[in-house]
Each structure stands twice: as C-alpha cells, then as structure tokens.
C-alpha cells in the first residue's frame, strides 16, 4: 500500500521535459486587443481586404459575446488586454533553405525531436513547424506538390491559394461559433493549410509542430484541411511550450473538410506545459476542432492529451452526407492540478451515418477530468448508428473522473450504444506484476498503456510509439 502511494506521488511529481525556453529574437506587437491590433496583424501578413474585413467582423462579434462558464474546469479571469497577439521570430525565414533560419530556432525543434532538415527526417513525414505565431518551415513541399498536394503555412495559402482559403475558411467553424473560436478568427496569426486534390492518397504523413515560446503571448493558430473527392490524408499535430509561471492562452481553430468519399485522419499529441505541481502556470488549451464529412466521407480524430493546465476541447464531426463516418479516439491524462474537459460532438445529418467514440481518461495526483460528449441524431438521419465507450482510470485517491454523455435522437431508426466504466489501478494488479518481476513503475506503465491500447492503436505507427513514450514519461518519476 505504502509503496503504491509512493509511485502515485512519483507520477504526480514527474517533471515536464519541454520546459526550457529559447532565446530567439522576436518581432512583436504590443499587448492588448482592439481594431488596430487586428488590422496590424492582418497588415503584417499582407492580407487581402476581404480577410481583414472577416477578422474585423469576428472581432466586433466577439465584443458582444459573454465568456462561457458552463465547463467544469474553472479558471481565473483572463485579461485579454494583457496578451501579446502577434510574436514572430525576427530573422527572416527563407522557404528555400534552412541556412537562413535562426540556428537557435532549429535547435529548438531538434531538441523537441523534430528535425526540420529533410535529410534527417523520417522520409514518411512532412512537417510544418509553427513557432509562437508563425510557421517557420514546412518540409517536403516540393515532393508533395508533384502530386498536387498543397501543404504550407496558412499565411502562404492566403497569398498563393486565396480562392481555396476564401471558399473554405469559416465554412466548418463560422466566426460566430463560440467565444474562443471567434477570438481566434479575429487575431489568428498562422497555422497550417493543406489541400489534397481529388483521388489523391497523400503519400506521406503530414504534421505540424506547435511551440509557444515568447512569454505573455497567446497562440491563435488556424488550421484548414481540405480533402477533395476521394482523397486521403493522415495528419498529426504536436504541441509543447516552455515552463512559465503565468498562464498562456492557446485558442486554436481546426477546420476539416472531407468532400465526397474523402478520408481525413487527424491525430494530436498535445503536450503543452501543464503548470508546476502546485498548479502554477501552464497553458490554457481552449480549442475548437471540427470536421465536416460529405457523402461517403470519413473524418477521424485521434488525440493524446497529456499537457496543458486546462484542456477544453471537443473535436467534432458533422456527418452531413449520407453514409459518412465520424470517429473520435481519445486518451487524456491529467495529473497534479491539471484539468481536462474534453470529448466530442457527433452530429448525424445524413442517412446511414455512423460514429464511434472511444474515450480513455486517466487521472493521477489531483487531476480532474470530464468526458463530455454529444451524439445528436437529426430527423432525417435514417439508420444512423453510434457506439460510444468512455473508460476512466484513477491513480490514487485524490483525482476525479466524470462522464457526461448527451444523447439527442430525433430519428427512431437510430441505434445508439453507450458504455462507460470507471476503475482504479488496484493494489492487486500492481502486486501481481511485481511478483512476476516487473518494477512498480513498469507495472503502472504497463497497466496504463493496456488501458489506452484501443486508442493508441489508431495513431500512425511512429506516433503511437511517441505517444506511448510520452505517457511513460508522464508516469515517470520513481525511475533510477
């Protein structure tokens, strides 16, 4: 018993590995938010008039919205006038060569295990690296462009492919959607853009790495992914931030459009700074992610959420077309004073639409988390089916887990199945594994990885290994 408590404590005390910051000179706008700042952001990015107007409309709408407080994790009021909305590495970034990139920046990403040097990268993965507010490097662009795949920073997309951006920006998450998405629409700085042409199976995994560096900055990136008819793409995002005492706001928007017969697989390994063990500092991760699936299309979300002081996100699927499919696989780990309120929304509009939800929550220390999920079947969604499983694993006696499933069905032919369980890592399990020769930490790690297996197996191979390591790292502490 005593030893189990030690492990639990060790888990709770394991340190954040990405807590260093980089000395990269940055070009910043002053803190604060008003129409001039919005215009200034737009001007810095040489945006066309329509986009500046879109941002301003969003900003004006945001002023009319109250900040939401229905979610379970409560946080101190954010002073929106005290946030830097634009920060970029000063040194000019050339897209042709890495030579001109600030070496400190390259090192930053190397340290994170993300090499921007194509020679060193795994050949199967193209990377867009986002540092504070801007994209610093996108790899393998040329190779991708041979197949007609566009993979670039959002800013470049605005310049090079305005017709696509104009057509799809805000088509899934309108600028009026919710408080943080609206804020993002006004001030978003950069992000990734991706377009897969009809019938193309994207030849490599696409990925974006996000890094918040500068103190006092908020990160408001915007990702837009369009898979045209019959296309396929697998996309991964990873996130880290330095340890800072103050809270940092990350309010991103991700929009996915899967046209007829397309398939988008979107995976996230989120490891923002969670704050220290007393709950000081850490990233507020308030993110809006949504995908629209047209006829026969499929949108699949997989997330491994281990970081952030507060995670508040519901990657969702709007199953608009007949026979479209939505999936959500999630592992969320909270420890220390981390809080997570996460889940998904599956909106069944088309006939014979199907959705699957597999959520695995792990709480250690004083971590607290809520699964919040909505399955909504609209009247015309004949033959819709949903299957949900929500399992929670508690480590120690001070953490909490809550499951809040909402089911709204307006069609009698719909079949909705929901399963939920809450379990504790039992002393018996740990003793059993130790009796067979495993250390206590390996025992805990084995139990946790077993618990998450159904989700981790959904991640692309190399990221599954990464995620497993990350979970191990998060559960580490007593090692050595």
């Amino acid at each position, binding site marked *: *018993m*005593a*030893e*189990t408590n030690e492990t639990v404590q060790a888990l709770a005390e394991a340190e954040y590995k990405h807590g260093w910051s980089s000395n990269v000179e940055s070009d910043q706008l002053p803190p604060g938010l008003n129409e001039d700042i919005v215009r200034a952001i737009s001007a810095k990015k040489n945006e066309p008039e329509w986009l500046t107007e879109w941002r301003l409309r969003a900003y004006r709408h945001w002023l009319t919205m109250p900040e939401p407080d229905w979610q379970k994790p409560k946080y101190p009021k954010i002073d929106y006038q005290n946030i830097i909305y634009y920060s970029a590495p000063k040194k000019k970034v050339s897209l042709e060569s890495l030579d001109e990139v600030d070496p400190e920046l390259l090192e930053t990403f190397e340290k994170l295990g993300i090499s921007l040097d194509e020679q060193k990268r795994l050949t199967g993965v193209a990377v867009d690296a986002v540092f504070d507010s801007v994209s610093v490097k996108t790899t393998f662009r040329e190779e991708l462009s041979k197949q007609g795949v566009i993979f670039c920073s959002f800013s470049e997309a605005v310049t090079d492919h305005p017709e696509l951006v104009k057509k799809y920006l805000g088509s899934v998450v309108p600028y009026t959607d919710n408080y943080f998405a609206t804020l993002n629409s006004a001030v978003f700085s950069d992000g990734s853009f991706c377009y897969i042409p009809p019938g193309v199976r994207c030849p490599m995994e696409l990925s974006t790495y996000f890094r918040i560096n500068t103190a006092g900055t908020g990160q408001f990136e915007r990702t837009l992914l369009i898979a045209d008819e019959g296309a396929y793409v697998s996309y991964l995002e990873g996130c880290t931030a330095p340890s800072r005492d103050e809270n940092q706001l990350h309010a991103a928007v991700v929009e996915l459009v899967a046209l007829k017969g397309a398939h988008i697989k979107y995976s996230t390994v989120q490891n923002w700074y969670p704050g220290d063990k007393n709950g000081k500092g850490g990233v507020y991760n308030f993110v809006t992610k949504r995908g629209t699936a047209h006829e026969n299309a499929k949108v699949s979300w997989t997330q491994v959420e281990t970081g952030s002081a507060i995670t508040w996100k519901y990657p969702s699927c709007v199953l608009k077309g007949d026979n479209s499919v939505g999936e959500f696989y999630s592992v969320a780990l909270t420890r220390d004073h981390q809080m997570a309120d996460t889940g998904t929304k599956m909106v069944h509009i088309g006939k014979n639409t199907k959705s699957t939800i597999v959520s695995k929550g792990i709480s250690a220390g004083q971590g607290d988390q809520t699964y919040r999920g909505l399955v909504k079947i609209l009247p015309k969604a004949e033959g819709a089916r949903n299957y949900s499983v929500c399992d929670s694993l508690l480590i120690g006696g001070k953490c909490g887990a809550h499951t809040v499933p909402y089911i709204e069905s307006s069609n009698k032919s719909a079949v909705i199945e929901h399963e939920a369980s809450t379990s504790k890592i*039992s*002393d*018996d*399990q740990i*003793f*059993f*594994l*130790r*009796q*067979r*020769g*495993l*250390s*206590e930490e*390996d025992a805990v790690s*084995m*139990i946790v*990885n*077993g*618990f*998450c*297996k*159904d989700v981790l197996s959904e991640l692309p191979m190399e990221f599954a290994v990464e995620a497993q390591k990350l979970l191990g790292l998060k559960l580490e502490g007593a090692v050595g």
Partner: protein
Amino acid sequence: MTEPLLEIKDLHVSVEGTEILHGVNLTVNAGEVHAIMGTNGSGKSTLTKVIAGHPDYEVTKGDVLYNGKSILEDEPEDRACAGIFLAFQYPVEVPGVSNMYFLRSALNAQRKSRGEAELSGAEFLDLVKEKAKLVDIDQGLLNRSVNEGFSGGEKKRNEIFQLAVLAPTLAILDETDSGLDIDALKTVASGVNSMRDPERAFLLVTHYQRLLNYIEPDRVHVLLDGRIAKSGGKELALQLEDKGYAWIEEEAATA
C-alpha cells in the same frame, strides 16, 4: 547438510493491526513438495503473500530466509527475480496487456536481474510453445489480455503456464486447485508434476484434499489459527479427508 531453500522462523504477521500469523515455523528443502492445509481464515493465504512480499502484510516478529538470507526487506520484484513465484488464488486481470507481452517483459526483467541475456522474440516464442503444451493452454489465450474474460479454469491454468515459463526455484501455489473441475485439476497437477526437480521446491496451499490425490507431497502441514498445528507425511491428508479438522483442534487445545 545443505542449506534449506526456505526457512520460516517464528513468523508473526499482522494486517491492518490484526495479527494473523502467530509464530509459524517451516523449513522447505530444494526438491521437496510441501502441502499446507487448513480451514477458512487459518492464515494460509497470508503466509503465501508474506513470502512474496505483499505490501499490506506487516511482519512484526520472526524471519523468512531464502537460500539462507532474510528476504523481508526485499521488494516483491526482487524476490520474483530471485526465483520466488506465487500462483495467485484470485488471478488478476490486466486489460489491454497481452499475455505474451506481459510474460516476455516479466521473463526479461528476471533474466536481466540475473545478468542473463534477454530473450529475442523468436526464442521467447519457442519457449512459450513448449510450455503451452505442458499445461494444455489454448494458443488463443496467449494473445488475449492477461486473464481478461478468461474462465476460472483458464485463469488458473494461466498461472501454471507462467510458472512453467518463469521456471522459479520456489513455487508457491495459493489454492490453485480451488474451483477447478476434475479435468482442469489433472492438467494443473500434471503441469506441476512435470516441473518437479531436485533444484526446485513447491509449497502447495490447498483447501481441499483432492489435489493431493494428483500431486503427492513429501510433507503435509496443517495451519490452524495462525500456527502450524500438525505436520506429517501424505497420510495426514487422508486422515483430514476422513476426520476433518476438529481432532487436530482438540489435539492442539490439549497440547
């Protein structure tokens, strides 16, 4: 004379402040099979868990020597690596972790601690195939999560399978026979019998005499109220079958 493999001296054990064992003495030599019998609540399970190092059990007095050295300060995994194996009365489920992965991790942890090379996937597979035959365990079960959805008999068989793969020096079976039908019992017994070895000792804790029809013990001990009240040869087990435990209680009371 060679050193005993296991020597328990005047062992007193408490759980949450209540003393369960009141001075157990027991010596087991390599190559021997000892059976410990007793009624509900006599302390049989407590004894096995203390030897394996369960953290809930507090030794208040006495000692447990393994190969001549006290193991009371050793962690459960250290004892396992030293060759002590406990087959659990209620085998534990570990969802999502395959039997094979678990067992290979355990075996390699043990080998590593002994300074032996870890087994490769192929070597491990060969070993598993050989041992699976020994205990007649279905190959399908090996790839399923540890004990999850296994029937009671399958769980017990899985314990013996782990015993066979890990090949310990001291094997403690805590009521492995309980709840088994006759066919499963025979399989378990033949698995144990095939592993009898001059270097290896068995401590069989059982509630039912029937097991001893299939595994012949060298010594039988009756645990009564936290003490060994009577020891003898295998004939003692037969006496228990005929007469129950009451006469031993009387003997113990008058002694």
